[in-house]
């Protein structure tokens, strides 16, 4: 992982993933380790994203690094028509590491080819968001004690959900069983089901939440109105995928509810007080996971 960019979750092997989780745990135990005190990190957010950006910048700061960058393309020379290539070439001469979020897919891969320093993809359009997947895995491992042999229920927009696709691919190393709960319009795309079939990983599809009493992890995502071609269909299904506290009554003690956030109405506020609600700690885990990723890439651990 040292000196290599992280663009896609498939860039990391099973061992790489486990190593990152190990590092994350170390940083959670001891968050202020100024290993990067002589380094400069560029935080290039061509598209606004408060949570990911603040999470990364916190990680950079806790590692003691100095941070340069921008949080919006309108405050960069993109407004003058500067190409991504030129921006990256310039910044890679200033900084030791680049963290980038960009609205166009493939932008991070391209940036890693133009840059002299490693690039971490903080989200390229609807394509990849590997650090989210790693923090999701860290959260799962922390709460379940393991990543192996788990029952994972994924709910909501499984068609466009970048995070569920990526999590599915990463968990495939660990012998999972998947349950997909989504409206027909948003069901898990064929290529991912084919991927699971080829690996012999069992999955079940259902249109309603139904029985989640065997689940270890409940991963909620937002069903977006704008994705539906028929607004009446949206109205009909929108409440089917909402989690309410009562629905957690017969679930396993170790069940945890995850959500990449921001949450709108898919997790009712009455769930927040339930000890099984884990989505805010999940976001906090993002800082430690990102510290682990940065440390691994910079060869500091």
């Amino acid at each position, binding site marked *: 992982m040292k000196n290599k960019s992280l663009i896609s979750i498939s860039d990391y092997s099973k061992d790489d993933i486990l190593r990152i989780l190990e590092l994350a745990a170390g940083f959670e135990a001891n968050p202020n380790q100024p290993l990067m005190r002589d380094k400069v990190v560029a935080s290039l957010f061509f598209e606004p994203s408060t949570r990911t950006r603040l999470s990364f910048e916190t990680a950079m700061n806790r590692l003691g690094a100095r941070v340069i960058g921008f949080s919006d393309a309108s405050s960069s020379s993109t407004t003058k028509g500067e190409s991504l290539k030129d921006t990256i070439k310039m910044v890679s001469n200033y900084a030791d590491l680049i963290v980038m979020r960009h609205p166009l*897919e*493939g932008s991070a891969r*391209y940036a890693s080819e133009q840059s002299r320093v490693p690039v971490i993809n903080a989200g*390229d*359009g609807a394509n990849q968001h590997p650090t989210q997947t790693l923090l999701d895995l860290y959260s799962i491992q922390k709460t379940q004690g393991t990543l192996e042999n788990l029952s994972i229920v994924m709910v909501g927009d499984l068609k466009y959900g970048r995070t569920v696709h990526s999590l599915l691919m990463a968990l495939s190393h660990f012998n999972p069983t998947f349950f997909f709960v989504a409206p027909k319009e948003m069901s898990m795309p064929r290529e991912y089901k084919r991927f699971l079939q080829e690996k012999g990983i069992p999955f079940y599809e259902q249109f309603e939440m139904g029985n989640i009493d065997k689940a270890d992890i409940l991963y909620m995502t937002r069903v977006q109105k704008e994705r539906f071609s028929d607004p009446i269909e949206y109205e009909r299904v929108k409440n089917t995928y909402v989690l309410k506290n009562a629905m957690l009554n017969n679930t396993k003690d170790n069940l945890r509810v995850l959500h990449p956030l921001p949450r709108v109405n898919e997790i009712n506020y009455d769930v927040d007080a339930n000890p099984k609600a884990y989505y805010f700690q999940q976001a906090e885990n993002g800082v430690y996971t990102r510290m682990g990723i940065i440390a691994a890439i910079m060869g500091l651990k």
Partner: protein
Amino acid sequence: MAKQKQLQVSAIENGTVIDHIPAASLFDVITILGLDKISNQTTFGANLDSQKFGKKAIIKVADKFFERDEINKISLVAPHAKLNIIKDYEVIEKRDVTIPDEIIGIARCFNPKCITNSEAIVTRFKVEDKVELALKCHYCEKITSRDELQML
């Protein structure tokens, strides 16, 4: 004899004949192989009758012989093309085209949000399925299928 009657494009002494190009793909093949820019004597036949495939096109390029990698690029638009290598008016070799494992620089990524459609980047695809054409973009990771395929 029957073959001679049907031959609507004249023979060449030395060079390459590319036959069984779908009629609609002729100009894509010309562009892919850069035939619009070379100075060799070239003959094109379009919308000729084909026994097997309906309407076909044929290209004859005098004194030009293509490397395998170069000619295989046309497999995207002419998967059943047949090459005849000609020396002294004789066919000395016949070849099929095969779809390579990687396609560089000739096809467009169908995803409008792919970075390759916004910046000057040479496209790169991994061929995931050679039968039902599936080109996976090296950058945006989306798959361009045969229906969506456009040449650059």
